[in-house]
């Protein structure tokens, strides 16, 4: 029996980079294959080729032993391949039905849409695979976990036999991840075959039948969960020994830097997204805010950094009330902000590194005298910082958009860390970065903490939080459910809390004044 899918010798070049280097992969029917590799290894490129979004420079694709040409998503769909992308390909203002049937519409009388027929089929699929999706909902109103299921329905609607899932767990709580894995198992029972792209070691161990490790565009190892261990996998992924455990100095608390009292924030549609949040942060400690994306962390950070006005509550920074201050005042008081979306908020991509490095200090001496910019000082500053923070760039006047993700983040860190800061707010600081950059940034953050800076770390990567944070706060639906000491809680418990459930078993962990009930 030929494998249901075989990729032979797939090669793809982009300007300056060999993304896929003669890759060979086999997928048997009914198995879950995990493609493991760090950010930038080439996994997504490979799958995009399989799905017809890119054309390979060399190589062939065989389905059920027969060679196929896939030049567009239509070909892929016709060959029975479906893909759930990392960033959902859903149109927010359309309904579930419209999103699912786009491109494969049910029609009557020629071109008129038959929404009812499509909706019925969607309900059918939803029941069969226990997906729980209502065809008439507007996608923008659906929570993220449900949106992902809509994506899966899209594939099943088109009778896909080979399902590709690109980093599907990035936006899910640990419990939702378990649910997803159950769904995958049901799919496989029904005869589907699945390729699962990820960089998360533990999930790969839990869920896959086989693992292929990709590094720098090549397949560097093939194994199974039985034979492998996280350590071995990590080494294969990165090519060297990776410290999975960070060494951390004990926490040395200084004075209180930040006090947040009953902070509430509304979003642009007037919904309360931060609901009465309170906590304190001292110098010398890292407070990690854990939680699934979309539970208010983004708006909390925006309120703390002056980018959004809270509706009520108080923020006190170093003794001063900054609840309604603008970003500049907060920065001037000694705050550094590593923004969640580095390209949107933290950098001016079309500007040179020199200008980006003075983005929030340009009006200070020595970078300007009065309103006149002092170019010499700005250039010197850039030269120094590029050296110090190891930014890989051809020159100080290089435009930032031509730097890699890791180096762009380093520019931001260089800028923020080169000021005397008392509070560091880091939001998803290592998202999308390669392991080397991740290690570097973690080291810098710990360094600041050891110097007495207060650090607020917001991240959806539980591992990062558990490694770095001294205390962990879990945000759910805009509230902080609880704040616990990092060493006192397990990952499973954190996962439950991220889903809104405070475990009653270890009731002594519960740090906040509140409840022990199940909060759902």
């Amino acid at each position, binding site marked *: 029996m030929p494998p249901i899918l075989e990729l032979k010798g797939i090669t793809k070049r982009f300007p300056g980079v060999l993304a896929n280097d003669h890759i060979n992969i086999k997928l048997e029917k009914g198995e879950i294959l995990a493609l493991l590799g760090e950010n930038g290894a080439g996994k997504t490129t490979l799958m995009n080729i399989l799905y017809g979004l890119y054309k390979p420079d060399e190589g062939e694709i065989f389905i059920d032993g027969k060679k196929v040409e896939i030049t567009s*998503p239509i070909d892929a769909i016709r060959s029975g391949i479906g893909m759930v992308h990392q960033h959902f390909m859903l149109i927010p203002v359309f309904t579930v039905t419209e999103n699912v049937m*786009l491109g494969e*519409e049910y029609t009557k009388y020629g071109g008129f849409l038959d929404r009812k027929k499509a909706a019925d089929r969607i309900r059918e699929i939803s029941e069969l695979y226990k997906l729980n999706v209502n065809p008439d909902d507007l996608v923008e109103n659906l929570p993220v976990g449900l949106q992902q299921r809509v994506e899966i329905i899209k594939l099943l609607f088109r009778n896909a036999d080979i399902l590709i899932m690109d980093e599907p767990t990035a936006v899910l709580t640990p419990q939702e991840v378990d649910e997803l894995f159950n769904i995958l198992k049901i799919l496989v029972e029904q005869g589907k075959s699945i390729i699962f792209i990820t960089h998360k070691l533990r999930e790969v161990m839990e869920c896959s039948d086989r693992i292929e490790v990709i590094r720098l565009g090549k397949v560097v190892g093939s194994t199974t969960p039985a034979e492998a261990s996280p350590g071995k996998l990590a080494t294969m992924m990165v090519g060297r020994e990776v410290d999975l455990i960070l060494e951390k100095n004990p926490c040395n608390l200084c004075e209180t830097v930040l006090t947040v009292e009953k902070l509430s924030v509304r979003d642009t549609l007037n919904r309360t997204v931060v609901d009465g949040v309170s906590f304190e942060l001292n110098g010398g400690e890292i407070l990690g805010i854990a939680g699934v994306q979309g539970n208010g962390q983004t708006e909390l950070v925006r309120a703390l950094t002056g980018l959004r006005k809270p509706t009520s509550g108080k923020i006190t920074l170093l003794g001063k009330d900054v609840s309604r201050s603008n970003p500049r005042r907060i920065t001037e008081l000694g705050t550094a902000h590593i923004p969640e979306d580095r390209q949107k908020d933290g950098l001016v991509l079309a500007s040179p590194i020199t200008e980006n490095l003075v983005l929030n200090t340009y009006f200070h001496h020595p970078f300007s005298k009065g309103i006149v910019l002092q170019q010499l000082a700005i250039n010197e500053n850039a030269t120094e910082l590029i050296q110090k923070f190891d930014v890989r760039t051809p020159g100080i006047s290089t435009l930032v958009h031509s730097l890699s993700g890791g180096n762009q983040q380093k520019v931001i860190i260089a800028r923020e860390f080169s000021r005397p800061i008392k509070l560091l707010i880091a939001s998803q600081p290592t998202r999308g970065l390669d392991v080397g950059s991740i290690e570097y940034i973690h080291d810098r953050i710990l360094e600041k903490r050891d110097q007495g800076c207060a650090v607020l770390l917001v991240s959806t990567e539980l591992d990062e939080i558990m490694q770095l944070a001294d205390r962990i706060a879990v945000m759910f639906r805009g509230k902080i459910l609880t704040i616990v000491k990092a060493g006192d809680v397990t990952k499973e418990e954190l996962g439950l809390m991220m889903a809104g459930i405070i475990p009653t078993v270890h009731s002594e962990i519960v740090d906040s004044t509140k409840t022990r009930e199940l909060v759902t």
Partner: protein
Amino acid sequence: MKSSTKNQNWITKVLDPARLRQWLPGVLFILVGIFIKLVLNEAVEADALTTFTTNINKTSIQIPNFVFNTRFGLDLISGLCAGIGIYQILRGFKNKLTMIIAVMGILVVFGFLVWGASGTSLSFTGMLAVMVIRSVPITIGALAGILCERAGIINIAIEGMMIAGAFAGAVVGSIFNLWAGILAAIMIGALLALVHAVLSIKYKVDQIISGTMINIFSTGLTSYLYIKFLQDTENQWLNESGFFRPMPIPGLAKIPVIGPIFFDHNLYIYAMYILVAILTIALFKTKWGLRHRSVGEYPKAADTLGVNVFRTRYLACLLSGMVAGFAGSYFSLGSVGRFEQTMTAGRGFIALAAMIFGKWNPLGALQAGMLFGFAESLTTKLSLLNFPIPAEVLLMLPYIITIIVLAGVVGRSRGPAAAGSAYEKESL
């Protein structure tokens, strides 16, 4: 001491923003009412009569003219204004405030009409019929904008396509016949749109720059050709296309009041109705429409499902140009019968405002077009009535209204999410 703090509290209470938002409009409404009562009322004689006529021949039932004492009419209107104002101060209309402001606008307009027509008669139906006529280029232009923008391409060049359409229509219409003129206008619109499409889609030029360039080119070229070829007396035959005559729809045109307003016009008005209907159905009920809109909202998603983003956008642009060219031909073939250099007078841009006002919906565009058409109709009417405000100032009215509309509406409506950005397929 005590009384001053008491006063202070009263003042801060009154000036508190939420409260301010409530009673300030109310006060304004009352002031408007007072203005109507005092200023306008005083300017007319006590026994002056205003006549509103509603007949334009040919209707089956003749409605008698509506005659009333001017002062009485003004009193009534000012009373209503004041009443609304008082209600606003006491209770406030809250969510319905925008609607109430529209109502106030209507009352004010009525007031001016009553006052201006004092001593003479005003054909109310006539005014509304003109409103429909004037709305045509704006509505059809807005439809062109919707077609393009719903697929993600901003079409700022509607003005340029219109003037080109007007020119082509006039000249080809003079050489051959009116229908050939329409065809020529549509084709020239499509041609310009093709340029816009190639620039925006293939070369990823900023869509506003590419559109502005087409405007400059089109206005320049039509003026150039006009001066070179159409100005000499011996060439006048090239610019005498004539225009389409009104064709009343049998039956419908005879309905009193409504008939003459909506159903007794030339083919352009009927084309407008038909286009609105076709576009509404096509965009929201057909497979083509779903794909078209998806490309404007989230082209990457559509691409992953096999929708050809580039082809859809090219088609959208072409259709948009064809409709815009057709709208342009209205100016020559549907109205004046010849081409003049500044015929379009910015209507292409007003059409964009109408599109936004109408929330990118064909039906909304129709309503918005009527609004602007009413403004133009009002302008003409008022100047005919020897209104004391100079004609030029009245001519500003449609443009000022456009600004007000844009300012009031834009923030609250969302256009197609991907409009304005070129689609990048990573490779291939």
